[in-house]
């Protein structure tokens, strides 16, 4: 397997998370549809406020990332946002976010779509941009306010949240990139056609041939390319559409439960799609120590996986306190019922 | 400058006039005023109106009303100063006669607020505020008053009931005004039970959305020839202005425009606040009454609400206000309101206010505000 690594050493110089404050309990969704209250895929999921969308949530995560990086917004040469819930079908979210940050002007901006791996795809591109000396700093965001069809299995898990990363030269990094690897095939496990509100999915087809095959190949590919084994890592974060999938994937690869625990947030915020692996990683960085090695492995339907290996530097100790931490957002919660949830998610016919 | 007198007044009933258009109402009020003045013409017509274009699709009201009242050809224009439009039109009419340009001027205020959906009316009234920095945030005109009232209550340690006496007085006075919209009295209990629109403001703190028109005829006092016993002299006509947006005020708890325009008016009339026998205050919201009483010099800062509690504002008190029901109970057809106030003060000074007659009324003041007192128009009348 061939490792991806730019000729110039790069790393994460700033990161920021965002999760909206509202939560709906899975048992509340089960109450409405008469579902079983045991065996629910998660406890509760985050729901965006009426005034929130991928753009506003990206802005807050990005401001947190800038605060940690300690660079001027105008030092950025790219703002890229991966999401499957961009508020406009045509018109970039990224220009709004770049302008809100004060980064607009001499900059690249673009929206990325690859189901749940759009954010890490943007991160791969940011690594390439900085690693090739085309830019000193580039921002990659994974953020979603995903919709699940009422009564669909996905309604229990489709959450809201994500994270922003600023890639820069390794000498200024709080976590240095050791290398990355991507694995992609045409596997139609989950998709949403143009103009449709809700996605379609292949039920159990989304499991073995899609999530597991790509996640395992992505992660194993990176391990093989780097010559590492799971025990070489302090932490690992996998895409987390529910609680069980990342646990099973970690186990199959040989990771222990305590390695994935800090980054496994789905139970409390739901599946944040493009944001899922990325916000699991910000939660992990919030408590990592210098020298810790972290595996981040995303999965996106359609299908593919991006895997990254980072080594934390001593810069983490000071920088992580410069912005609101991931767990603060996770623990900030206002529980709403299904009626309010339906209103927040635009499921009430107003006109 | 010449002295100017009011020689005729006309009012339509204030209410929801489903069967009558803006032009119907304005024409009725104008014809009533001309009839009351015993004249059949005017040299110029000034029409006060805020929202005819937005709510009824009709602008150029000056030409329209001139034509409707049979005075096609005269000098005419519409005057807009938000809720103070009617009083601003009166100010223009006053200047037109005082300057010597015209001898006989008709001033009409007309507004039809019920022609549109309530959310469109709410949005339109908010045009009195700052579009880019207030209304774009969904801040309605009621909300602006609520922001003031909540802060005022915080600063002076008051509760909503401290404002109840203003609405109780207004409704009591409207009972005897045939032109008023609400002609039934309310109690403090009604006030306390009222539904919040934008806390702490309830429906009982707010003037209603309604339609109406009023008109006055102005004449140079020198031309009265001593035979117009019911003529009432305009002793002062003054406008003061302030920032449009609340956020732009150094001290949001003080209505500078009210102070400026009141002080100018007192100087013009050569009087002091204590000489005023009755005050038609801009009681669109209770908080506006309270803050106006302070800025106009009738109460010390933070003491405006006390005047009402002491009973000073009733027709028998030392400063009767809203004597014909005020904006709260007579109703507040916004661009017409300033002209209603003028007509009502004239009624009082003529001694024609019926059961609401203020005894020994010689000096009456009317004050109309545009926006959150972004402009204040003050008129003082003497008999």
């Amino acid at each position, binding site marked *: 397997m061939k490792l991806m690594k730019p000729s110039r050493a790069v790393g994460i110089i700033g990161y920021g998370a965002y999760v909206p404050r509202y939560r709906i309990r899975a048992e509340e969704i089960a109450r409405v549809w008469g579902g079983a209250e045991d065996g629910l895929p998660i406890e509760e999921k985050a729901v965006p406020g009426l005034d929130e969308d991928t753009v506003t949530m990206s802005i807050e995560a990005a401001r947190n990332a800038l605060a940690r990086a300690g660079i001027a917004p105008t030092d950025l040469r790219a703002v890229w946002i991966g999401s499957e819930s961009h508020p406009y079908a045509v018109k970039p979210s990224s220009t709004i976010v770049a302008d809100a940050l004060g980064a607009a002007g001499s900059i690249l901006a673009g929206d990325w779509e690859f189901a749940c791996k759009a954010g890490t795809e943007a991160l791969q591109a940011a690594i390439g941009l900085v690693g090739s000396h085309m830019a000193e700093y580039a921002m990659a965001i994974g953020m979603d306010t995903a919709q699940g069809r009422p009564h669909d299995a996905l309604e229990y898990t489709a959450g809201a949240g994500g994270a922003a990363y600023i890639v820069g030269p390794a000498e200024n990094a709080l976590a240095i990139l050791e290398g990355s690897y991507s694995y992609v095939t045409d596997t139609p496990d989950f998709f949403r056609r143009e103009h449709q509100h809700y996605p379609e999915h292949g039920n159990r087809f989304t499991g073995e041939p899609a999530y597991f095959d790509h996640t395992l190949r992505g992660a194993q590919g990176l391990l093989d390319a780097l010559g590492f084994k799971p025990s070489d890592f302090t932490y690992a974060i996998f895409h987390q559409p529910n609680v069980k999938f990342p646990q099973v994937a970690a186990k199959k690869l040989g990771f222990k439960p305590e390695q994935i625990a800090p980054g496994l947030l789905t139970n409390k915020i739901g599946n944040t799609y493009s944001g899922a692996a990325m916000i699991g990683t910000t939660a992990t960085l919030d408590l990592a120590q210098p020298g810790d090695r972290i595996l981040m492995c995303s999965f996106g339907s359609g299908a593919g996986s991006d895997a990254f290996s980072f080594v934390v530097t001593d810069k983490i100790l000071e920088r992580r306190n410069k912005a609101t931490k991931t767990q603060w957002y996770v623990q900030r919660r206002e529980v709403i019922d299904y009626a309010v949830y339906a209103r927040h998610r635009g499921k009430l016919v107003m006109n | 400058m010449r002295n100017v007198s009011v020689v005729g007044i006309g009012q339509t009933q204030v209410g929801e006039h489903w069967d009558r258009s803006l032009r119907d109402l304005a024409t009725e009020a104008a014809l009533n005023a001309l009839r009351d003045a015993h004249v059949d013409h005017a040299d110029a017509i000034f029409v006060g109106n805020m929202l005819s274009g937005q709510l009824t699709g009709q602008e150029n009201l000056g030409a329209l009303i001139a034509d409707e009242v049979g005075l096609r050809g005269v000098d005419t224009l519409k005057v807009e100063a938000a809720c103070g439009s009617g009083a601003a039109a009166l100010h223009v009419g006053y200047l037109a006669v005082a300057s010597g340009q015209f001898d006989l001027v008709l001033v009409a205020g007309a507004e039809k607020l019920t022609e549109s959906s309530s*959310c469109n009316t709410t949005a339109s009234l908010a045009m009195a505020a700052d579009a880019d920095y207030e209304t774009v*945030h969904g801040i309605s005109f009621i909300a602006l008053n609520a922001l003031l009232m909540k802060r005022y209550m915080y600063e002076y340690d008051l509760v909503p009931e401290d404002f109840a006496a203003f609405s109780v007085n207004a409704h009591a006075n409207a009972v005897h005004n045939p032109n008023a919209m609400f002609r039934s009295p309310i109690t403090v209990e009604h006030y306390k039970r009222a539904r919040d629109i934008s806390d702490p403001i309830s429906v009982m703190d707010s003037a209603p959305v309604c339609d109406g028109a009023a008109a006055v005829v102005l004449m140079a006092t020198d031309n009265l020839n001593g035979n117009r016993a019911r003529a009432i002299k305009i002793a002062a006509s003054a406008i003061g202005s302030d920032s449009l947006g609340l956020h732009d005020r150094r001290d949001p708890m003080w209505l500078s425009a009210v102070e400026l325009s009141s002080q100018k008016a007192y100087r013009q009339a050569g009087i002091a606040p204590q000489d005023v026998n009755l005050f038609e205050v801009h009681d669109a919201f209770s908080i506006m009454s309270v803050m106006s009483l302070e800025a106009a010099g009738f109460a010390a800062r933070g003491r405006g609400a006390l005047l009402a509690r002491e009973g000073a504002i009733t027709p028998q008190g030392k400063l009767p206000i809203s004597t014909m029901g005020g904006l709260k109970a007579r109703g507040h057809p916004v661009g017409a309101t300033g002209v209603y106030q003028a007509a009502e003060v004239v009624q009082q000074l003529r001694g024609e206010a019926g059961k609401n007659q203020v005894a020994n009324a010689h000096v009456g003041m009317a004050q109309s505000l545009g926006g959150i007192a972004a402009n204040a128009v003050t008129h003082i009348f003497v008999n």
Partner: protein
Amino acid sequence: MDLARHWRLKDQRYRLEGTVCADCGAKFFPPRQVCLECKSTNLTPREFNGHGELYSFTTLRSAPMGFEDQVPYTVGVVKLDEGPMVEAQITDVNADALKIGQRMEMVTRKLRAQGDNGLIIYGYKFRPETKAD
């Protein structure tokens, strides 16, 4: 569609860009062309940090057109630490938990959408201050 009128205000809406008087140092939000303190016309752009105190607030139960789908919502006046006062919606909080004088911070949110096919207007709102821990 009134696209230009919102676009031209984006620096203010996104980043609280106001002005500072180059002659007397007075700070303004919204931006002004003439200094209120010294009448100078020599004003330059200045961003405000968005932290301040809640001066007043109210919850609307009846909304102007364009905001019907947000009812009930809370608006307030925030006095920025750097001087100016700003009016905006208050978000991420239950109104009964608000108190005059409490610390607030600016966030960027959707102010409203112009229907299903129109512009989404983004801009500043305020919420109770959250401290980086």
